[in-house]
């Protein structure tokens, strides 16, 4: 195949991956809720419930408080765009970097952070007390998560000599011993902790709380309604799904397409859907057994994960 045609084909695969992830993201939220419900003895609303919520929200007229600025209108879209871009960048279906936009983990993290900041500004915009509180806590967590993320990236990138995720995943696939290496395990554990923090899951934030004073994510979006809320929810779920997919591919790098043939891509889709669904179920199950940490214990958890990431770096020096 010629260059431009190959790029077009690649782009098509990326768009397909995004489409799959958009379809899957609400179901991921549904799976975690369903797993929780079942373990709590409930029947549960079914894994498709988040999709029903989104469909309904899109049909509602958003209510904007007096004095809401452009940020209230734009921030949900920015969050969604950040989630979609992350879903396009992370190697989920195929582990091949786009020639112009390789899936550099630094770029992925910064795109995620755009969404984080958009959400924080959304919380501040109308000037409600809860919004400011959520925004402040959210940014505090984001600030102290950052060192761990980059440290974990560093540990993962040492064996490959690149921060490009596709290369890291492909390397782990061709050399499965690196998955079980101390450095690899520690880095992935650290990464899981920060993903939980960054996506507002237990034990850092309770996604199903009704009590404003314990909220982080929910407090920022208290003022968001109708389709704006739909975008915010979809964007957040996309972030969660894409990051779970990343962990899935780092831990179980099999099934990821390394070439762009139709068969490989379809296999990649099946594999990633299975991995994400598995991890989502696991997440729901783990959350049942966990209580939310007090806000000022969260830094201790994150400091712990930082130490893990640092150990991972050290281990990769010693073992490499």
């Amino acid at each position, binding site marked *: 195949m010629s260059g431009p045609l190959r790029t077009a084909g690649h782009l098509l695969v990326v768009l397909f991956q995004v489409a799959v992830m958009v379809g899957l993201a609400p179901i991921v939220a549904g799976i975690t809720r369903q797993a929780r*419900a079942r373990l709590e003895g409930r029947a549960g609303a079914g894994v498709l419930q988040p999709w029903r919520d989104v469909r309904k929200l899109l049909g509602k007229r958003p*209510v904007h408080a007096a004095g809401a600025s452009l940020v209230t209108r734009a921030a949900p879209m920015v969050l969604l765009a950040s989630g979609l871009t992350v879903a396009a960048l992370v190697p989920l279906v195929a582990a091949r970097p786009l020639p112009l936009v390789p899936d550099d983990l630094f770029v992925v993290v910064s795109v995620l952070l755009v969404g984080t900041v958009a959400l924080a500004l959304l919380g501040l915009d109308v000037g409600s007390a809860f919004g400011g509180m959520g925004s402040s806590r959210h940014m505090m967590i984001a600030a102290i998560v950052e060192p761990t993320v980059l440290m974990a990236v560093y540990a993962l990138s040492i064996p490959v000599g690149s921060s490009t995720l596709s290369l890291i995943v492909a390397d782990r696939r061709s050399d499965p011993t690196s998955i079980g290496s101390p450095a690899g395990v520690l880095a992935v554990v650290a990464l899981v902790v920060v993903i939980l923090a960054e996506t507002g899951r237990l034990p850092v934030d309770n996604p199903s709380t009704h009590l404003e004073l314990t909220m982080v994510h929910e407090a920022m979006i208290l003022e968001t309604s109708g389709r704006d*809320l739909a975008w915010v929810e979809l964007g957040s779920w996309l972030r969660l799904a894409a990051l779970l997919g990343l962990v899935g591919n780092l831990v179980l790098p099999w099934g990821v397409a390394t070439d762009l043939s139709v068969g490989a891509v379809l296999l990649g889709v099946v594999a990633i859907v299975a991995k994400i669904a598995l991890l989502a179920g696991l997440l729901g199950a783990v959350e049942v057994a966990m209580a939310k940490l007090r806000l000022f214990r969260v830094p201790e958890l994150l400091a712990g994960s930082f130490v893990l990431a640092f150990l991972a770096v050290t281990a990769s020096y010693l073992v490499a």
Partner: protein
Amino acid sequence: MSLARLARLVARTGRVAEPAPQRPVASPPGDEPGPVPDPAVLHALRGSAQVRHVDAGSCNGCEIEVAATFGPVYDVERYGARLVASPRHADVVLVTGVVTRNMAEALRLTLAAVPEPRLVIALGDCARNCGALRGGYGVLGAVSDVVPVDLEVAGCPPEPAAIVEALRTVTGR
């Protein structure tokens, strides 16, 4: 609690949710005919209804029943209804109790904060027609005296099954 104990507890408890009863017929629950929700609104909310609960002056009897409705046994969440903290996220305003003078403005503000299409459910006899508290010095009136009501649930307090039925009417599941 250790993880193993928790796992044993989960296994021993199993499923506590009761099997789902028949889907309710179109007519609203209760012995006397009440208001009927707009079919267009019901169509818009099919499958999913977020509920903001407002206690406008209740004796807390209805609250206990509402809590039971959303608990694991009746598990109304399986039909797509969910309690939310912010009225901006809500589709249904579930009002319990008579509307007291102090809560009337709060109730109006809550409704104004809920995006359209939306529904108001008056839950319990107090909310429907002031019930036992009719004529009290702090009572402004029933819910329908303050905001338009789309659906009523009778009872003092109404049974969880009746509340489930009302919410199933909204979500259509």
